[in-house]
């Protein structure tokens, strides 16, 4: 270690690290090649490599920017859903496999209410048709008009409903299934949660039907940034330069809504955990359950709030995911569960900040990998990155660095 202080310390340190982890050389090499390739693509250059393989190609910076944006959007969904998974893991001590179906629960219940509010008074759209999320025949998404432009209040009502309904479902499940086996340890609870996942998914399928359906109305949701700015600040005279570039861009308002709601919720949760008595008690219990008990912290009440917050956030994540995606079916959360787990494990299981960071990494890799590989394989790229990170940081990015 002392040698690191000598001349050329940085290189010596680096070479020592590389000698200890030869695999890292390969990883660095791949990273360098990818960066060169990316720069070549931006420049529109194609560099012949061997046979018909080339480096570089064509990729506009705007396209790259939109992939990054999409990565952040999906990453926030993984992160938001992952927070609850991480919380139940650290406070209740088990990996909750039914978390993906809580995500779906939020999507269906939230959209039921959003459509009911948005579709009020639309011909042929009965309350039952709307609340069961447009199963079967009836007016389509465009007629109901469920978009942030046409009926913003309906969209926000849906966010609230997704949180409330999912939290209630989680509280009932806790009382019926998890509470009686609280002291049985992680494995029995994990297995029970797989059962709950299947039951919940079947219940959703039974109530809402198994068809995939389009939900959102996308008319007018892509707007120019200039229009929004002018709506708020009046006329803006700017062209060229960075400001001009931003003003000339256009945004998808549903994605923007998703990002705003997700960021607000994450900041609110952060403040709640750091500032309030309940938040501190949740962190205390995640840290040391036995001591929380002898300190007089009402552990069962903390557990209830863990479910309310964790499931509520998962429900909102499911709802927002559909807002961005436009369509849904009963398998929605089940298919995303692995990504959510990957985000949480990558970030360091038990840490909510880790869940968000892990979600963003997984989301960005998922989207950016499309530049290099077929989009059928982008999930594989996300998991490969997870494995790679865990090889060098087995406890995840945030484990032991920050609280709760």
């Amino acid at each position, binding site marked *: 270690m002392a040698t690191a202080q000598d001349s050329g310390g940085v290189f010596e340190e680096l070479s020592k690290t590389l000698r200890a982890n030869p695999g890292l050389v390969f990883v660095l090499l791949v990273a360098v090649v990818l960066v060169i390739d990316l720069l070549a693509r931006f420049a529109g250059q194609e560099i012949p490599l061997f046979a018909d393989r080339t480096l570089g190609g064509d990729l506009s910076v705007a396209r790259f920017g939109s992939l990054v944006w999409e990565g952040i959007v999906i990453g926030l969904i993984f992160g938001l859903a992952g927070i609850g998974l991480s919380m139940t893991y650290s406070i209740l001590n088990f990996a909750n496999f039914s978390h993906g179906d809580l995500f779906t629960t939020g999507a269906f219940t939230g959209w039921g209410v959003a459509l009911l509010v948005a579709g009020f008074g639309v011909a042929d759209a009965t309350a039952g048709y709307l609340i069961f999320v447009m199963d079967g025949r009836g007016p389509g998404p465009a007629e109901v008009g469920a978009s942030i432009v046409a009926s913003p209040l309906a969209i926000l009502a849906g966010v609230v409903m997704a949180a409330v309904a999912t939290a209630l479902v989680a509280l009932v499940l806790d009382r019926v299934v998890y509470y009686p086996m609280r002291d049985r340890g992680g494995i029995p609870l994990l297995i029970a949660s797989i059962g709950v996942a299947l039951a919940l998914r079947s219940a959703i399928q039974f109530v809402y039907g198994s068809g995939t359906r389009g939900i959102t109305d996308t008319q007018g949701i892509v707007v120019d940034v200039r229009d929004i700015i002018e709506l708020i600040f009046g006329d803006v005279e700017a062209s060229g330069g960075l400001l001009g570039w931003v003003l000339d861009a256009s945004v998808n308002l549903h994605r923007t809504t998703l990002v705003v709601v997700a960021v607000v919720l994450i900041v609110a949760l952060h403040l709640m955990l750091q500032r309030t008595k309940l938040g501190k008690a949740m962190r205390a219990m*995640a840290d040391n359950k036995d001591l929380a008990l002898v300190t007089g912290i*009402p552990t069962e009440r903390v557990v209830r709030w863990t479910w309310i917050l964790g499931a509520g956030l998962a429900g909102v994540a499911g709802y927002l995911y559909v807002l961005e995606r436009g369509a849904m079916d009963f398998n929605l959360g089940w298919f995303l569960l692995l990504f959510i787990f990957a985000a949480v494990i990558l970030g360091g299981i038990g840490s909510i900040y880790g869940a968000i960071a892990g979600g963003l990494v997984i989301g960005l890799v998922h989207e950016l990998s499309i530049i290099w590989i077929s989009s059928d394989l982008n999930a594989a790229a996300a998991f490969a990155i997870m494995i790679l990170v865990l090889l060098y940081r087995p406890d995840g990015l945030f484990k032991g660095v920050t609280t709760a």
Partner: protein
Amino acid sequence: MSANRDPMAVAPDSSILEVRDLDAGYGDLQILTDVDLDVGDGEYVTVVGPNGAGKSTVMKSVFGLTVHMGGSIVFQGAPIHEKKPEQIIHEGISYVPQNNNIFSTLTVQENLEMGAYILDEVPKQRLEEVYERFPVLEERKTQRAGSMSGGQRQMVAMGRALMLDPDLLLLDEPSAGLAPDLVDEMFDRIDKINNDGTAILMVEQNAKEALRRCDRGYVLTQGQNSYTDTGEELLADKEVRQQFLGG
């Protein structure tokens, strides 16, 4: 055994804690049999004995952390042997476990705040008193408790337990894991807490020092009381010295 080995012989005039014929253990396993123990108002009592004698179990039983199998525990006139820890803490007893006795990812101040969780608000004056008692905690109040040294962690743990101004403080092996030069300091702090009016029931591995400091000691063997007497008398007792204090 001589006549004054009757457990009641030197019992204080007014006990705040009275343990009578206590049988207790974990699951189906009984550890304690017919244990009698008293702590007077403001008294400093230690329990010493060989490894595995059930010293910590006595303390955990008082705090409702074991399975109660018989006998009674009365604190300030009210039976508490059927209560849970979160109820017992309301009665005026605080407990400092031997291991993992801090919230290591919380800050020092948050640890102390958690100590007063059962109150509606953090008692500002009490917090000041704890900081006065352990000035180093005030200096480091925004630091994560887990990043502190062993001695400082022990202060965080005791500070947390003192936040409710308990009438009885239960200390499980406070000197365990401390560097030898810190052990004396730790015992001085406990003396100070006791002198300020808090009764103490302490389990200690370091029997000589504990008996030297305390008002009264109990010697526990195989889950039963063997002797009780003042600390000095126990230290002077030939039999006790040979069996428990290494001659």
